[in-house]
């Protein structure tokens, strides 16, 4: 191993920077747990688990406005509810929180199983037609959340084929080609503008998330049209991209670790625990932004009011003070209070849904698809191709 660096210069948490980000985390955690980067207009990062936890519990010091997203998600409008601070935030969150309880999510289970089964069969037949090789990102990790979430949210099936491109343009191209992200953001805004107007004109009975957003009150009033679009915009990106990444990165790990793969295939009841470990180590959300509202000190470093701050969940999730052998992926790790879904008032609203999709997705995939290994040598992160060679039974 080469000498460990003393500082992480211009820390970045998107795109290619993710290739070696775990090494950056080590340097940050060991040598500079709070530091500065000039990326994205400049920010101070916070890397240690305990400090991230404290910051999330203190929204009066670490606010989300103007946005938790850095760089933005193809829009300059604050997204509801994640870019909204107290006291307004709670009312928005209340609209959907009850729909995301584990009990409500459980009712979606049969549909999820059916979808995962079907997609796993698609993987098998694609591999059979192509010398045993298939792109399981395209065939499984991406379509599963698209189908499950679109049904729950109420997006018509004929629109689904458009979604991947919008997600890619915003989430994966925003760092280098912001104009592409903004163009896609414009399309999503138009899409929901039209869908909301249509629903409101036609009336009709719906039982989905969009309906909830359209018909709920906040502070005793209906949401404005702009608020409805903003909420829908956020749900769309949050519901589709992150779970696709999480499924893909779990399969990426299992493809390179035949023992763990077989262990979970033979013992599906161990999958929920393994899922927590994949979330800890390979999570789609490595960092989120805040804005410091009052001068404060973290790890002896001064953070000034007005500074942008990035909470590096991915680093906190590999903090040796919290996790034994933090870089080891132990699928049976029992104590796993990770930060993959964030915490405090902005805790990921969809965490119970994401967990369920991951568990069912992995269960069905492992049950149906015989042993698989890497055939393309792709990176761990993102939602790009994951080419696997699938063995015969």
């Amino acid at each position, binding site marked *: 191993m080469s000498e460990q660096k003393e500082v992480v210069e211009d820390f970045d948490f998107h795109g290619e920077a993710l290739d070696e980000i775990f090494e950056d985390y080590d340097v940050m955690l060991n040598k500079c747990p709070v530091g500065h980067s000039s990326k994205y207009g400049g920010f101070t990062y916070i890397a240690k688990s305990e400090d991230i936890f404290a910051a999330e519990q203190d929204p009066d010091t670490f606010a989300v406005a103007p946005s938790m997203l850095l760089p933005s998600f193809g829009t300059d409008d604050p997204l509801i509810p994640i870019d909204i601070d107290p006291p307004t935030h709670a009312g928005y969150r209340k609209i959907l*929180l009850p729909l995301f309880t*584990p009990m409500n999510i459980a009712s979606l289970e049969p549909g999820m199983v059916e979808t995962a089964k079907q997609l796993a069969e698609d993987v098998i037949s694609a591999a059979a037609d192509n010398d045993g090789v298939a792109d399981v990102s395209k065939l499984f990790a991406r379509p599963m959340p698209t189908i499950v979430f679109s049904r729950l949210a109420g997006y018509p099936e004929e629109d689904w084929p458009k979604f991947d491109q919008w997600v890619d343009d915003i989430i994966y191209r925003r760092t280098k080609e912001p104009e592409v992200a903004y163009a896609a953001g414009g399309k999503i805004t138009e899409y929901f503008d039209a869908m909301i107007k249509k629903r409101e004109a036609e009336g009709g009975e719906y039982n989905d998330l969009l309906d909830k957003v359209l018909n709920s009150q906040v502070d005793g009033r209906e949401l404005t049209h702009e608020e409805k679009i903003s909420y829908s915009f956020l749900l769309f990106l949050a519901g589709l991209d992150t779970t696709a990444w999480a499924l893909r990165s779990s399969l990426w790990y299992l493809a390179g670790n035949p023992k763990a793969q077989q262990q979970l295939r033979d013992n599906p009841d161990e999958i*929920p625990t393994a899922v927590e470990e994949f979330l800890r180590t390979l999570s789609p959300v490595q960092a989120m932004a805040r804005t410091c509202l009052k001068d404060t000190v973290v790890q002896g470093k001064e953070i000034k009011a007005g500074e942008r701050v990035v909470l590096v969940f991915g680093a906190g999730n590999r903090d040796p003070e919290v996790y034994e052998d933090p870089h080891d992926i132990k699928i049976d790790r029992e104590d796993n*209070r990770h930060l993959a879904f964030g915490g405090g008032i902005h805790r990921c609203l969809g*965490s119970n849904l994401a967990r369920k999709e991951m568990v069912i997705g992995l269960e069905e995939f492992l049950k149906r698809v015989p042993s698989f290994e890497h055939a393309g040598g792709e990176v761990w992160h993102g939602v790009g191709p994951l080419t696997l060679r699938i063995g015969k039974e």
Partner: protein
Amino acid sequence: MAKELYIDLSRCQGHARCWAIAPETFGIDDEGYAYVIEGREGSYDEENVRKAIRNCPERSILIRETEESQ
């Protein structure tokens, strides 16, 4: 003095880890927040419950001293 398990609802954010790990002790209400199932307040020393306490992301599962009930 006796002890009892409780949820600090000012901190609970509805991650539902407690329910996933120790469903015999924790429930989730219709709003999405946790509660200790009636009659399970004394279960704080059980292995599952300790595990739930260690895994609650908000550290909102707590134990407090209570006055002995008459």
